[in-house]
Structures are given as structure tokens and as C-alpha cells.
């Protein structure tokens, strides 16, 4: 396990709950949707942590909470020792330069009314990275070249670009601030396969060159494996398993991780069938005990009643399962 | 039965949409009014519309004949004693209220008392009354402080006048208008229903006993021919005209002069001129502002104006107006030319000179007018232009009528405002004679002449004094008459008995269709 002294970001027991239903004067029947319900992990300097899970598991909320786009309901997140969850928006603003985010949808993440130059110069001006029009233009031109775009595109508007190009611009906007931590939320999932590969290569190159730490959020295990050093698997607001990617992919401990891995279609012809274990429950009405128990072939009484805490199953490898000792057969 | 009727009407609606006019019983007379009356209580309400409706229900002791002379209505006769200071009035004995009670002197005394204390025009007479008593079941006695010439005219003028109600209704009545359920009178029609916005309906009083004699003006025999009179508010004038043309109404009031030629030539429409003209008045502020006491400046304004173009624009056909300076029309006993040389000079140069003499330095003169009465507004537009040409700085302010009434009560809000006046049988009833009327004309000269005017009972002497007063009006200019306007109403040709003109308010007894 990474020593907390060297870790850039240390998240402990993070919770983000949303209020749903009921509002106004007599909104008595409001409930909490526990999008994240006790998530802990650390990211070391220069490390890429992959966060993987199915839709609705809360993985994007983790990213949004860590950039204060959502309000946390509990826990702490220490960035270079400071708990950013306790900060007001104004206090956090200077730190935004260090914690940057890449968004999923390259079509929605750029303001259609701003030219590329305007979009890219905004963070520079706000954080006073560069001053004076000429200097700013130089920095932008430099950055555009780095992400594989011609500097002459500066004057154009987002609608004139393809999805892959837009995502490059999105990456440029983030990298131009030389952040210490990048949160990439499904950064390549909206892209076509051939473009996805290009962008993934770009992100990986830039990360390795700059040594920036990264929280890479994705539903695609292949992508996560490709880019991450360590991987966390989330299920219904909790981390099911976390560890070095070799361990997760070759020696998964949690039945859910195993289910995920065997569900991925491979490009080898012929169908390998997977047991039909039902669908994920909704975070609005999570099952009792271990949230995975309704789908788990190993489920026992304790799984139905008690929520498993993370236990170590190897070096830097934790899993939240009552039955780490038992083998599980996912194939149908 | 009922279902059958509904079914039939539905069928009829599908096949024969052309059958439109037949919704009302034949015996209902449909009168399209310009609006709704504020209340029908004649003591306190001076609205002409209210009187048009109410004088079918409520009657006074006297009324006017065709030559505007007072004749007995509920009274049987009267005698003056004590050099005119005591008036004894005998009452008719056959009069019954709509509630079935017979009318006695107690009812008359109660009614006159309330009118005297709270009535709109009661004060004019009652400031001279020392006592009022019932001197018999059917006789009352009025004792005056001094002889008072216009008493009978005041008693005969039902608008804001002494209608006779039962004493039970008068009990506790004050300035607040009576409730509809208290509309109990003696007239040929009695109160039916008042559906707000929809109509006021009067129904025939079968127990009516008419005054003696042949019909003469409002006097003489009154016979209710219709089962009901229905007064329907139709505020849009175009709709009133269309309604008569299409046969939806029998009678409609307040029709613009410009349509007169068309309507007069239309076989589907009868036009009825009003006998007594109304006249516009532009009051000047005697209490506050640049016009206060500055008679010269007022005369300058009067001199600047040529009344004729305004009448042409506001009224239209020459038959319907007269640029007449006398406050009462030609042919009337009160007609006089005194002072009228200044009525309509239209001399901008002379006006300029006068204004300069009066020390006018171009201060704005605030003129208030309301669009609720288009002819006020049209007149004001023309005057404003003429005054501007004579170098006056006119600030024309246009309000709705309610706002104008409110503002004119505040002396600092205006300098001139426009209104109009209905025909009155006695000059004492003209608003400018009232010292409290906005404008507040109360000069010593006026006070002296007015005292003489009311004290005299001699018709010839009173005429003479009136011509002095009119001359004074043209000299001090408390108000400017804008000219006589002969309004006209229209009716369906089916209506019989209307005559070619109305006296003051249209009356529908002795009328049928």
C-alpha cells in the first residue's frame, strides 16, 4: 500500500448523498440517494488510478466530488495534506489549477460560443499562468501542438471540429495549467474505436511526460487496464476491490470483479457464456448488507446482513468481500 | 316539456341559424344603454341614465309638461301663503306604492327630509326651509325663511330630486344610496331585477293610478304598455347601432353625431332627437394656479377659442349642434344673449394681447379631459390647438373619468377641466351656480346676484337677474360653454308612441310596439 506521506491525494470514507423526492413546504418524504457511500483510496505522485464500474455505481460522482462540482456528505479528501472537502468554493479556487478534470462528452464540454483561443486562454488568465496576449497565444500554440493540433485552429469554434479533435482541445485545456492531478471522467468512451486509441495514446504520453497523477474513471476494463497503474472496482457506491492492475486483472479477489472480467467480449470468435446473475440494483434502493449479494453465487446470510469492510488479500490489494477464501465460477 | 324545448332549440340551431331575434317575449322593451347606472336612488344620484330608468318607478310631487313648466304629479294642488313664505301642498289620495301601501303625507315628509338633508339637489331648496310638516293625511306644509322662486322647478326635477319613497324605506336612510330591495316607488313600472352587467328590468305596475289629464310632456296620463322594460348595458356604440339594425334592441341611446345622416336615412332605424340640448363646459380653477382671480387671463383664453370647429369635429352634422352662447337654448324662457358676444371670438391676436396684459408668461396651463366622453376629448384637442396658436402653453392631461373626478377636487392639480351639463329647467340648477362645485367660483359679484335671483319669485325679474349672471359669467369666465349639443337616440321603427323628440329623459309609458 502506498505510504500516505508520498500520496498526492488521500480519500477516506468519502460520502456523497443526493436528496431525492419531496421538496418545498411539506417535502417530508425526501430520501437520500447514496451515490457514494464510504469510498477510500489514495493516489501517489505520478500514479494513475483506474476507477472502473458499471453505470450508476457512483464512479463519476467520485470525480465530481473531488473537484467540488458536487457537495460531499462526509469523509475527507486530502490533497497535499489539505482537506479539500472542507473548503468553500472560493478557498478551493486557487487549487483548481492543480486539480483538473477531463470530461466525457467532447461535444458538450466546450462552450459552443467561444473560440478555441478564448476557451484555452481563460484558465491561463484566471490563474495568471501567462499574461499579455502574445505570451498567452504562444502558450496556447505550444499546447495545441503538443496535443496534435495545428496552432492555426485557435480562431475556430468547437462545431468545426470532430469528436477526437475536441477531446484533444479538452485535454489541452487541462494540461495547459500543468496540474498535479487530473481526473479523467470517461475521457474516451464517447469516441469511435480508432479515435479512442489515438486519444488514449495521447493521454498516456502526456501523463508519462509530465508525471501528473491521474484518476481515470471508465466503464471499459480494457481502457482502464491500458492506462492505469492501480485499479479500483466500484459497485453501488462502494469500492469492491482495489489493487495493482496486474493483481486485479490476473488474480481478481471479488466475485464482482470476476463477473466483470468474464463479461467482456473478446475478439476471439466463439461465445463463452457467462452465468446470468441478474442486473445491478439501483442506488436509490440498495440491497442490505453486501450490495452485490443478490447477484453473488457465494452469497450467504452474513452477506445479506453485514456490509463487508475492505480486507487485504495481498500486497496493496484490498477487497470488500466476506468470502475471499472461496473460489467462484462465473461461466455458465 | 322542458326537454322537448331544449331538443327543439338544438335542432333549430342546426338548421335555421337565420332565426335570430326572437328570444324575448313580445311585451319586453329592450333598451341598449351606454353603461350601467350607479344606483337608481333618485335623491342622491344625478346620473342621467339612472333617471332614464328610475323615473318609470319613482315619481315626485311635480313634473314637467311639454313646455318645461312644472305640473302636479303626486300632488293634487298647492297654495302659497304668507307672501310666498308658506307653501301648502295637497297630495293625491289614490296613490299606492309598489308594496301596496297607500301614500300619505308621512311618506312625503320622510322623503323630502332625507332629500333635503342628503339629496344632491335638496340643499338648494332646504337651505331656505324653516320647517316641513304634515298638515293632514294628504297635505304637507313647507315654511320658508324667505320667498324662494325656483321651489317648484326643483321639486319637479326628478334627477337628484325629491322622489317619494315609503317612510319605511326612508327610515335611517342617509347619503348611501338605497339598496335595490328598497326600490319602492309609485310609478307605472316597478322594480324587477338587477343582474349586474346583464340588465336592469322593470315590470309593469298593474295597480298604477295615473295623474289626471291627457299626456303632456311628463305630465298627465301615464300608461304602461309593456310587460317589462329591460335596460341592457351595451357599452360599445358600434354594437348598440348594430343591435338596433339587426333587431336585437328596440332602443339605443348616445349615438355619435357622425352616424346621424346614415341612421336617419335607414328604414330600419328611427332617430329621436333630444329636445333639451346638453352643453359642454370647460371649468377654470378659481381657487388655485395662474387662473385664480386673473379674469383677464381667462378672458384671453376665451377670446382665443372659436367654438365652431370643435363642434364640427366632436359632433358632426350641423343639425345636431348649435354654437350658442346662451346657457339655455333658443326658445327657452331663460334664453338670453347677455355677454354672448364673447362666446366664440377665435381671435388669436386679441387673445395674445390680452394675455400679455394679464401678465401671462408662458406658464403651463394644465387641462384635464377624459376619453370616457369622446366629445369632451375631441373638443379639448381642438381647443388645445387653438390655444397653442394664441401662444398658450397647454399641458393636456387625459384621464379616465373616475380619475378626473378625483383630481378636479384637488385645486392644485388642474387649471381647466372639461365636463358637460344636461338640460335643466331652471338656471339655479346649473353647476356653476354652486359655489362648492370644482372651480369654486364664489366672487362677491356672483354672491350678490345669486341672492337676488333666489329670493325673487317674479318670473320676469328672475329672467332679468339671470341675464346679469350670464353676463358676469362671460366677464369672469368661471367656465366656458362649448356649445349646445342635441343628442339623439335611435329606435326600431316598430316602436310606437315615441314622438319625434324627447323632453329630457326618454320615457316609455304610453309607448308600445
Amino acid at each position, binding site marked *: 500500500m502506498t505510504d500516505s506521506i508520498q500520496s498526492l491525494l488521500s480519500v477516506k470514507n468519502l460520502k456523497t448523498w443526493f436528496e431525492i423526492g419531496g421538496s418545498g413546504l411539506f417535502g417530508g418524504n425526501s430520501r437520500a440517494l447514496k451515490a457514494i457511500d464510504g469510498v477510500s483510496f489514495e493516489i501517489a505522485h505520478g500514479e494513475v488510478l483506474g476507477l472502473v464500474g458499471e453505470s450508476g455505481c457512483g464512479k463519476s460522482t467520485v470525480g*465530481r466530488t473531488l*473537484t467540488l*462540482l458536487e457537495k460531499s456528505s462526509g469523509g475527507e479528501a486530502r490533497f497535499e495534506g489539505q482537506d479539500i472537502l472542507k473548503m468553500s468554493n472560493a478557498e478551493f*479556487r*486557487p487549487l*483548481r*489549477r492543480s*486539480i*483538473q*478534470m477531463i*470530461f*466525457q*462528452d467532447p461535444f*458538450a*464540454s*466546450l*462552450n*459552443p*460560443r*467561444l473560440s478555441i483561443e478564448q476557451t484555452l486562454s*481563460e*484558465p491561463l488568465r*484566471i*490563474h495568471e499562468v501567462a499574461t499579455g496576449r502574445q505570451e498567452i497565444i504562444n502558450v496556447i500554440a505550444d499546447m495545441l501542438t503538443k496535443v496534435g493540433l495545428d496552432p492555426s485552429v485557435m480562431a475556430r469554434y468547437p462545431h468545426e471540429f470532430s469528436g477526437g479533435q475536441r477531446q484533444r482541445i*479538452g485535454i489541452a*485545456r487541462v494540461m495547459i*495549467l500543468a496540474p498535479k492531478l487530473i481526473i479523467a471522467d470517461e475521457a474516451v468512451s464517447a469516441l469511435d474505436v480508432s479515435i479512442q486509441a489515438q486519444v488514449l495514446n495521447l493521454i498516456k504520453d502526456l501523463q508519462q511526460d509530465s508525471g501528473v497523477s491521474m484518476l481515470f474513471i471508465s466503464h471499459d476494463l480494457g481502457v482502464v487496464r491500458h492506462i492505469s497503474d492501480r485499479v479500483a472496482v466500484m459497485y453501488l457506491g462502494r469500492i469492491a476491490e482495489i489493487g495493482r492492475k496486474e493483481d486485479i486483472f490476473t488474480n481478481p479477489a471479488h466475485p464482482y470483479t470476476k463477473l466483470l472480467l468474464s463479461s467482456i467480449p473478446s475478439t476471439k470468435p466463439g461465445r463463452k457464456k457467462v452465468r446470468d446473475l441478474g442486473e445491478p440494483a439501483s442506488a436509490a434502493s440498495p440491497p442490505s448488507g453486501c450490495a452485490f449479494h443478490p447477484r453473488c453465487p457465494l452469497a450467504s446470510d452474513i452477506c445479506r446482513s453485514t456490509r463487508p469492510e475492505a480486507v487485504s488479500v495481498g500486497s496493496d490489494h484490498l477487497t470488500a468481500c466476506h468470502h475471499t477464501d472461496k473460489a467462484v465460477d462465473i461461466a455458465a | 316539456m322542458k326537454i322537448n324545448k331544449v331538443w327543439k332549440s338544438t335542432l333549430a340551431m342546426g338548421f335555421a341559424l337565420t332565426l335570430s331575434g326572437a328570444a324575448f317575449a313580445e311585451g319586453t322593451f329592450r333598451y341598449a344603454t351606454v353603461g350601467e347606472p350607479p344606483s337608481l336612488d333618485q335623491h342622491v344620484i344625478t346620473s342621467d341614465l339612472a333617471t332614464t330608468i328610475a323615473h318609470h318607478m319613482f315619481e315626485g310631487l311635480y313634473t314637467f309638461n311639454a313646455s318645461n313648466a312644472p305640473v302636479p304629479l303626486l300632488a293634487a294642488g298647492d297654495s302659497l301663503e304668507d307672501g310666498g313664505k308658506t307653501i301648502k301642498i295637497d297630495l293625491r289620495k289614490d296613490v299606492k306604492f309598489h308594496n301596496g301601501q297607500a301614500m300619505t303625507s308621512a311618506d312625503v315628509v320622510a322623503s323630502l327630509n332625507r332629500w333635503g338633508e342628503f339629496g344632491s339637489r335638496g340643499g338648494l331648496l332646504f337651505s331656505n326651509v324653516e320647517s316641513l310638516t304634515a298638515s293632514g293625511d294628504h297635505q304637507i306644509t313647507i315654511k320658508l325663511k324667505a320667498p324662494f322662486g325656483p321651489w317648484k322647478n326643483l321639486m319637479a326635477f326628478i334627477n337628484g330630486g325629491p322622489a317619494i319613497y315609503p317612510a319605511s324605506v326612508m327610515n335611517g336612510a342617509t347619503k348611501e344610496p338605497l339598496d335595490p330591495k328598497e326600490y319602492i316607488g309609485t310609478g307605472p313600472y316597478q322594480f324587477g331585477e338587477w343582474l349586474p352587467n346583464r340588465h336592469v328590468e322593470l315590470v309593469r305596475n298593474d295597480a298604477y293610478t295615473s295623474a289626471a289629464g291627457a299626456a303632456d310632456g311628463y305630465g298627465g296620463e301615464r300608461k304602461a304598455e309593456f310587460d317589462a322594460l329591460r335596460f341592457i348595458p351595451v357599452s*360599445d*356604440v*358600434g354594437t348598440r*347601432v348594430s343591435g338596433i339594425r339587426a333587431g336585437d334592441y328596440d332602443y339605443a341611446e348616445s349615438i*355619435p353625431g*357622425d*352616424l346621424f345622416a*346614415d341612421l336617419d336615412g335607414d328604414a330600419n332605424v328611427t332617430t329621436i332627437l333630444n329636445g333639451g340640448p346638453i352643453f359642454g363646459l370647460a371649468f377654470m380653477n378659481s381657487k388655485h394656479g395662474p387662473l385664480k382671480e386673473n379674469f383677464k387671463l381667462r378672458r384671453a383664453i376665451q377670446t382665443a377659442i372659436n367654438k365652431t*370647429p370643435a363642434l*364640427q*369635429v366632436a359632433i*358632426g352634422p350641423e343639425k345636431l349642434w348649435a354654437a350658442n352662447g346662451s346657457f339655455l337654448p333658443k326658445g327657452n324662457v331663460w334664453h338670453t344673449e347677455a355677454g354672448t358676444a364673447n362666446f366664440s371670438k377665435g381671435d388669436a391676436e386679441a387673445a395674445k394681447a390680452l394675455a400679455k396684459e394679464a401678465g401671462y408668461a408662458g406658464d403651463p396651463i394644465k387641462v384635464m379631459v377624459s*376619453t*370616457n366622453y*369622446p366629445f369632451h*376629448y*375631441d373638443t379639448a*384637442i*381642438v381647443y388645445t*390647438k387653438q390655444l397653442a396658436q394664441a401662444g398658450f402653453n397647454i399641458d*393636456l*392631461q*387625459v*384621464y*379616465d373619468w373616475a*380619475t378626473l373626478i378625483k383630481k378636479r377636487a384637488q385645486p392644485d392639480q388642474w387649471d381647466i377641466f372639461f365636463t358637460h351639463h344636461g338640460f335643466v329647467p331652471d338656471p339655479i340648477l346649473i353647476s356653476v351656480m354652486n359655489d362648492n362645485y370644482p372651480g369654486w367660483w364664489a366672487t362677491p359679484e356672483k354672491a350678490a346676484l345669486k341672492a337676488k335671483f333666489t329670493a325673487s319669485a317674479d318670473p320676469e325679474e328672475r329672467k332679468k337677474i339671470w341675464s346679469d349672471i350670464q353676463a358676469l359669467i362671460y366677464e369672469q369666465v368661471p367656465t366656458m360653454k362649448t356649445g349646445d349639443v342635441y343628442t339623439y337616440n335611435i329606435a326600431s321603427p316598430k316602436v310606437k308612441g315615441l314622438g319625434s323628440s324627447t323632453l329630457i329623459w326618454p320615457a316609455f309609458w304610453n309607448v308600445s310596439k
Partner: protein
Amino acid sequence: MNIAQQIYRIFAGRILASIGFAVLIIVVLAAVFAPLLAPFDPLDIDPISRLQEPSLEHLFGTDQFGRDTYSRAIYGARMAVIIGAGSVAFALLTGGLIGMLSAYFSRLGSFLMRGVDVMMAFPALLLALVLMTLLERSVVNTIIVIGIVYAATTARILFGMTLKLKGGVFIDAAICSGAGHASILFRHILPNLLSPLLVQATFIFAFAQLQAAALDFLGLGLPPEVPSWGNMLAESRIYITRASWLLIFPGMLIIFSVFSMNLVGDALRDTMDPRFKDDIAGV
């Protein structure tokens, strides 16, 4: 893209809308050059020549004051433009600001939008009637009264659109770049509202004409001496048979200008950002 190209993009292939646009340009030109185009003073009274039929001298005839209806109609275009533009400006500035701020600052918003709800609960014309009786009849007051009514609808619409934009990813991106409230509101959100605002403006402009005419008709709009198309109709409605030209010409002018504005608004909406199409359904 320059303005001419944009206009071409909007009107190319839309014949009706192009005609509408042309009509509007004519109305605006008439408004601007009214003193040059009108052969007579629109206020000049001439009792001798009242209620004359249309002729070469008086193209649209004369009214009951003997004023030249054609000249009044030209000056009426000026009033139409002033009332329309004024109401649009008032509605968009106040309503737009309220809507935007309410959506952005949700706590302030729940309070402000309640107020907007109260305003919306009043039928537009009744509110205008009460206000116009309270205030004096004047051009400015008419603009305010009509503007208030549409300010409420504008606030509602902008509230919805701002809310949608505020939840957009590029706003999150701007926040992550460290942008402050003012920058997000006016640099990131506002420019994205401009095209829906433009469409909204055309509809307000069109409906303001009808509202103003209705107020004039009820005698509670512009001061009666002002030559507006609504006043011309209101003053001459009794002449519908006697002098039909007094109703036909101003009526047609209102219909054509409103119709044209609606056509242009429709064309704008069709070419606009599809994201907001749902939000503006005509006022």
C-alpha cells in the same frame, strides 16, 4: 459568419418568411423616415375635410378630425416600432436577468421565481388594465406594462434554459478552470442564450403589438392623441360602416406587421440551436 450570411441562411428557401422580413424592413424604414414619408402632419386637424374617402390626396382617407390617415399610419409604424422595441428591451432586460440569476443562484431563485409565479397568475391584460389605470397613459408606461407581462414569461423561459445550461458540461469545465460567478454567467451562459433570446424577442415584439392595440381599444393604452394603429382603430370603430377605411387600413397594418414578425420568428427558431427549440413555444 457575417450578418448578411446569417440572414441568408435563415431566409433562403423560406418564401413567406422572406416576405415577412421585407415587410418588417419596410415598417422600420417607415418608422425612421416618417417625417419624410408622411405628406401631412399626423396631428393636423382640419374640420373641413373630415371623413373623406381615400383619394390621391389622402391615400387612406381622413378621419373624424380631418387628419390624414395615411400620414397617421406612417407615424403609427413609428409607434409600433417604439412599443415593440421598448417592450422587448424591458422584458428581456428585467425578465432575462431575473430568470438567469434565479436559475444560477438557486436560493435567490426560489424567492424570485415565486414572485414571477404571482405575476404569471394574473391574466396579462387584467394586470395591464390595473396598472394603466394606476399610471398615466403614456408611451413609457405602456411599454412598462406590456414589458412586465412578458418579463414574467421571459423569466420563466430563461430560468429553464439557464438551468439546463448550468447543468451543462462546459459550465463544469469552466468551473474547473476556476471561473467565477460573473464570468460563468456572462461569458459562458449568456452568449448561449442569445439566439433563443432573439427568437423570444421577435415573439414579444409581435405580441406586444396586439397587447398595445387591445389596451388602446379599451382606452387604457397610449395617450389618445398619439397616432398609433391601435388608437386609430379605437377612435374610429364607430365608423366601421360610415368610413370603413378608418378600420381597414390600420387593422391590416397591425395584422401584416404581427404576421411578418411571427414568420420571421418562426424562421429564426427553425434555424436556431436545436437544444432550445422545446423551450420557446410562442408566448
